[in-house]
């Protein structure tokens, strides 16, 4: 990337890879926030049961690393599977809605309404159907996560250049081929944006799912762990578990950003040269 003459133009892209400067800003920001937090607690403003100091969270993180890792595993599985299902459902529904105005009128309002359903209302039914395993959690995560994918994909499919469709028509493309060669790739960047939103709300979705539907087993997930710790006044450990969720969400988000470069490179970097 770097030439002996130095960069030809300022680099605004915050890819951050291999550039320590790009990492400096978030590190500084986190340091400042942690410092303020520590000072706030040291000032004796609250009880340690309400807000533990960052250093005691760090200690809890260190001492409970094994426990937290064991609890991350079921949560990560729920989020991973849930997101995959939500992507599939959101995407298929979007395509169906795009292809059929009737479905659009029928399904879209229901999909919007589904976002207002409090999970606590349906949680007993989910447990009645599927018991204490992973399925009720998956249902909750899918319910929360399919919606951003649906909305962004519907908009992306509708935003295809009509001239591209006309061109395909002159080349005698079928409806399916118009979808395959124009609409689908045109909608992909929007769908991936929806997936990123879905991923981040998916992590909190896993917490809600674990809170609302009981689990049998020693390690029931980070959400379950957080609730148990809060009840037992093990606040530093609850915070430590929350830190793990925090880091997990960020890691997932950037993993998807990397996938986007592979899936839809035309939507990412400005590679425009001679034009």
């Amino acid at each position: 990337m770097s030439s002996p003459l130095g960069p030809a133009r300022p680099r605004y892209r915050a890819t951050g890879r291999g550039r320590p400067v790009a990492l400096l800003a978030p590190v500084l920001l986190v340091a400042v926030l942690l410092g303020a937090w520590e000072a706030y607690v040291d000032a004796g403003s609250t009880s340690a049961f309400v807000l533990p100091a960052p250093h005691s969270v760090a200690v809890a993180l260190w001492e409970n690393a094994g426990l937290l890792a064991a609890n991350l595993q079921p949560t990560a599985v729920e989020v991973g599977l849930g997101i995959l299902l939500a992507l599939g459902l959101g995407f298929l529904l979007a395509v169906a809605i795009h292809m059929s105005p009737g479905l659009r009128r029928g399904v879209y309002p229901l999909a919007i309404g589904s976002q207002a359903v409090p999970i606590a209302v349906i949680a007993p039914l989910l447990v009645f159907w599927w018991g204490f395993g992973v399925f009720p959690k998956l249902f909750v995560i899918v319910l929360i996560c399919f919606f951003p994918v649906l909305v962004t994909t519907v908009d992306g499919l509708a935003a295809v250049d009509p001239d591209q469709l006309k061109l395909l028509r002159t080349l005698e493309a079928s409806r399916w081929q118009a979808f395959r060669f124009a609409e689908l790739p045109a909608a992909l960047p929007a769908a991936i944006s929806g997936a990123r939103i879905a991923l981040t709300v998916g992590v909190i979705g896993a917490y809600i799912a674990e809170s609302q539907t009981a689990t049998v087993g020693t390690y029931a997930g980070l959400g379950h762990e957080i609730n148990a710790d809060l009840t037992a006044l093990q606040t530093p450990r609850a915070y430590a578990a929350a830190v793990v969720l925090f880091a997990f969400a960020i890691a997932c988000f950037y993993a998807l950003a990397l996938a986007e470069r592979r899936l839809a490179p035309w939507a990412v970097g400005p590679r425009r040269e001679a034009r």
Partner: protein
Amino acid sequence: MPTQLQPLAQPAPRQGTRRTAVGLKNVSRSYGGPGVPAVQALAGVSLRADSDELLAVVGPSGCGKSTLLELICGLQAPDEGSIACAPAALMPQHDLLLPWLNAIDNAGLALRIAGLSRSEARRRAAPLFAELGLEGFQRADPRELSGGMRQRVAFLRTLLSGKPVLCLDEPFGALDAITRAEMQEWLALALAREPRTVVLVTHDVEEACVLADRIAVLSRRPGRVIEELGVELPRPRARTDLELIALRELALTALARGSAGEPA
């Protein structure tokens, strides 16, 4: 690699048995709907292009030239009149290369749509791709290509549709003068190698004179044919050729009459 075309040793026979490839009789077309005042784009247009002939259609902007091409390609139906036409492929005004396909896959799009696999479409597109001065750009992203190169790929895509008639809608309108001149030369050579019936819509009278076998001058909207000029000049043609300049003046005069809205 050849970025310039070599003319064929034996030029394709341009005389001989000729069939009408494109025929329009008294074609009219209006747009409008309930509550919208109708706009008549074309009024009683009759045109003819023989097979492997290049018909240039020149006219002031907004004279229904694009409508004419869409009618020939069957994307629209005329309100009145009849169209008898061999299957035609459209090269739209903007290249409309798909940004998610590389150059050779864009060129071979019609082959993919015809059901060939990607590798088979590439294999079929490759020889022409190289011959038409695109060697080395097979895997290039459309956005990495210059305007002229994009038009080459778009033309190749039209050519590879396999249709006997090509409808080119201001193909070089967005290019700078030097690139446009290069591309006109390129198109003449490409057609010498791959003869097709071409309907070329342009607002550039000189372009029409350099490339066409026949020139139809349209009036301003509603478009009517106000002049048809046969071009018998030998090829390759130089812009500075006196006969070509005379022809250009003739066409420009007709165009000026048409723009002034003189009744036919």
